[in-house]
């Protein structure tokens, strides 16, 4: 099996400064009244001269105020420059709240940046402006924007429009089919659906879905945090954004997509491994000679120990031999000296009487023998002869004290010996029985293999059931409110109470409490006790293993993956597959694998929210349902015209599979045979700017701009409706 591809997260690095100040203003644009076009989006701002093909500036719409520690200066940076310094990056803020400009201080800084970079050095901005604003933007926002532009920058005129409609214009939308269509703009903070008729956007029928690129990023981040709670590093928003941009796609059929993931065989087609950066731990590689030195040292120590042990053994042996000699000499001395003297000598050496001395001599002798044999390496078999039982049968009253003691000792030794013999015999019997059993099994197997296999399977199943039952019981007992727990409580209460249950009394028909006389009564303590029955479980497991090994050997259908261990191990579960993938197998000690994520369900889930907002609990209708509602607001003729061009624009729409999914959705809601087509913007990100630039140079639209005089006369909320923008309220 080949190694699956591993994807990495790339940290974007930007040049510093991202844009240098242009120097062509004097020559090319001064005194030309070239319009400046600004596509002010919540994700990126794109600005430039209308006559140029591409916007001169494309930057993230953020402002950062921070103090640069290196040169100790207060900095205000805009766009990609804000990411140059880590302090700046964390401080980067957008003038937007949602898709509406609310913070005009930051907006002012953005405009400063644009005009400065364009190289404008006149005392006021002497160029008409075309800007984008949100769909049905609140009047507060437009008023302050006008104020900023006219009073601070002295712009001669401003025209506002909606970015997706500008994009529609740029892609020829207003000329096809009488300018009727449906524009779907999947943006950063929201997704808009704007129907158009006769070249004008119908704002009364427009709908906005509060899910866009930024909500998708947040959701991806949340999903990853839930899936990997013990992930070693924190995931940042920009990393989640990378994941969304690179690995998310829109499924054509969501249910099919989910089934593909659940099925272990097709899972690998969807699953992707993302490797997070990590630092490998430094393992001190000991050189060859160091290792050799360590081994030699260990060897040295072992040898020394062995020598010391041998020496002590030798010493002991010598001492024992000396003692043995001394004591035998003492014993032999009995014959030589008088009894009294000898007894005195005995007592002096520390023995009570002759028997004691004899015992000691015997022990010493056997010890010396054992030691000698060990030295010589003779394998000694402990042969215990049957003990002397001469005094056992004589009744007590015929013996004196010493003999009584002797008798007791002999009785004890006899009992020991008998017990040992019995144990040995029992063991041999058990072994014989086992062998007999195995032989029978073999015969059974050879006689009727299928039936035998079936029998073994049954037995195995019985053991598995027993194990499961035990597990269930332990789990039930831990829950206080389960029936098993209640029964247990009842038995405890019964045992503890002074008046046991009447049933018991009736059965016993006795006054006294005879609990405990019967062995069966004590079994109740076993049931009450909640200690784990691990030894029984072990027993069951070993029996299970035995059956499974037989089945593995003789049953062709029984595969290792059917074994109990494989089916119950955590690596086999669905959750493990989704979190850690299938191959290569997860090794908890591998640092690289610890920093890996698997995106599978998330790849289609994050995009699906557009069509089913209930996935994140957003109480809005999905894209398909909303499109349906909007299309129904047209009368049947207009409807046919409108669906001939469904135009898709916006950054979030560049997710793979978006347009084909919209196409399938349209097929769901339109009557059979309706002609419809889904058209994608040539460049979803830049077309809004391009359309606005086209409009800026189109003399027809000049009448729709708001001049400074009109601003002063009518106020900041005034706007002229031109079909590609908002209407005045």
């Amino acid at each position, binding site marked *: 099996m080949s190694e699956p591809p591993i994807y990495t997260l790339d940290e974007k690095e930007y040049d510093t*400064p*991202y*844009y240098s100040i242009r120097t062509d203003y004097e020559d090319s644009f001064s005194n030309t009244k070239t319009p400046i076009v600004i596509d002010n989006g919540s994700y990126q701002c794109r600005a430039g001269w209308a006559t140029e093909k591409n916007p001169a500036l494309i930057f993230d719409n953020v402002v950062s105020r921070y103090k640069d520690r*290196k*040169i100790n*200066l207060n900095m205000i*940076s805009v766009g990609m*420059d804000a990411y140059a310094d880590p302090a700046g990056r964390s401080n980067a803020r957008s003038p937007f*709240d*949602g898709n*509406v400009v*609310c*913070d*005009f*201080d930051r907006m*002012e800084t953005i405009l*400063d*940046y644009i*005009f*400065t*970079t364009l190289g404008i*050095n*006149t005392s*006021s901005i002497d160029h008409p402006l075309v800007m984008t604003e*949100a*769909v*049905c*933007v609140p009047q*507060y*926002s437009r008023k302050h924007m006008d104020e900023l532009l006219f*009073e601070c*920058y002295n712009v001669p005129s401003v025209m506002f429009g909606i970015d997706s409609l500008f994009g529609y214009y740029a892609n020829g939308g207003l000329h096809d089919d009488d300018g009727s269509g449906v524009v779907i703009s999947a943006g950063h903070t929201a997704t*808009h659906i704007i129907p158009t008729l006769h070249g004008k956007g119908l*704002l*009364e029928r427009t*709908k*906005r879905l509060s899910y866009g690129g930024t909500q998708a990023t947040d*959701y991806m981040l*949340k999903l990853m945090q*839930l899936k990997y*709670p013990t992930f070693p590093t924190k995931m940042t928003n920009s990393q989640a954004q990378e994941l969304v941009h690179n690995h998310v796609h829109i499924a054509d059929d969501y249910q099919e997509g*989910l089934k593909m*993931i*659940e099925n272990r065989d097709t899972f690998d087609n969807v699953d992707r491994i993302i490797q997070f950066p990590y630092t490998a731990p430094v393992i001190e590689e000991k050189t060859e000679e160091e290792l050799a030195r360590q081994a030699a040292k260990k060897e040295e120590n072992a040898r020394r120990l062995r020598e010391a042990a041998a020496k002590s053994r030798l010493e002991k042996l010598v001492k024992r031999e000396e003692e043995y000699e001394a004591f035998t000499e003492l014993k032999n001395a009995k014959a030589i000296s008088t009894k009294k003297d000898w007894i005195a000598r005995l007592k002096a050496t520390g023995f009570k009487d002759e028997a004691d001395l004899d015992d000691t001599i015997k022990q010493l002798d056997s010890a010396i023998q054992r030691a000698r044999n060990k030295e010589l390496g003779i394998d000694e078999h402990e042969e215990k002869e049957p003990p002397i039982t001469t005094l056992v049968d004589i009744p007590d009253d015929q013996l004196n004290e010493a003999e009584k003691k002797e008798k007791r000792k002999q009785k004890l030794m006899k009992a020991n010996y008998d017990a040992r013999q019995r144990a040995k015999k029992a063991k041999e019997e058990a072994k014989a029985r086992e062998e007999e059993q195995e032989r029978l099994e073999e015969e059974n197997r050879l006689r009727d293999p299928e039936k035998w296999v079936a029998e073994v399977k049954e037995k195995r199943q019985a053991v598995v059931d027993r194990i499961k039952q035990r597990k269930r019981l332990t789990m039930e007992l831990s829950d206080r409110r389960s029936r098993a727990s209640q029964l247990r409580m009842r038995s405890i209460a019964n045992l503890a109470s002074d008046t046991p249950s009447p049933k018991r009394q009736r059965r016993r028909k006795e006054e006294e409490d005879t609990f405990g006389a019967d062995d069966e009564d004590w079994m109740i303590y076993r049931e009450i006790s909640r200690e784990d029955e691990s030894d029984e479980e072990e027993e069951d497991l070993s029996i299970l293993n035995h059956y499974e090994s037989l089945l593995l050997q003789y049953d062709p259908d029984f595969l290792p993956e059917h074994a109990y261990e494989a089916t119950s191990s955590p690596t086999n579960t*669905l*959750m493990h597959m*989704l979190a850690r993938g299938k191959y290569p197998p997860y090794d908890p000690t591998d640092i690289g694998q610890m920093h890996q994520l698997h995106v599978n*369900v*998330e790849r289609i*889930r994050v995009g699906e929210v557009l069509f089913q*907002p*209930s*996935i994140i*609990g*957003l*109480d*809005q*209708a999905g894209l398909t349902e909303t499109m349906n509602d909007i299309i129904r607001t047209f009368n049947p003729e207009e409807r046919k015209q409108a669906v001939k061009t469904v135009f898709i624009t916006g950054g979030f729409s560049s997710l793979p599979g978006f347009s084909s999914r919209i196409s399938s959705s349209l097929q769901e809601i339109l009557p059979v045979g309706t002609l419809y087509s889904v058209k994608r913007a040539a460049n979803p990100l830049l077309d809004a700017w391009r359309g606005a630039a086209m409009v800026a140079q189109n003399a027809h639209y000049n009448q729709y701009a708001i001049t400074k005089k009109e601003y002063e006369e009518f106020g900041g909320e005034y706007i002229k409706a031109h079909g590609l923008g908002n*209407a005045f*309220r």
Partner: protein
Amino acid sequence: APKKSSSKKSNNSPITKAKQQSNVVEEELLGPSPLNLSTIHKPFKNSNYKTPKKSKNLKQILAAERTQELALDVPTYQNIECPPSVLPQKKYCDVTGLEAKYTDPKTGLRYHNSEIYQFIRTLSVPNVQAYLASRNAAVVLK
């Protein structure tokens, strides 16, 4: 005609001049630095213009807009929001994301099969709330 906007450079005392020079030298030593808008000269700005310090956020703006009553067919920022769905919603497992046929009555989590259920039973309350929060169903105590 607008007045000639005053220069944004600081006054020419010897100390500030020295500071500026040292800054320039430092900048040259440290290499290219991002465009700093606080020090750059912006001739196109009206020096009399005072930037409003206070700004409202969207919630406040919309609250103020709500007081302005308009005819019902005029589209406003809040009008054009998508209404709630009338179609039955598909339920998805909170833990795996697959289809959820079952719901745990104790926690309210939706799950895909018995294996996930065993996992849900082991979850602590904050974890349960975290899963619910991912679909906006967590208990919020005000």
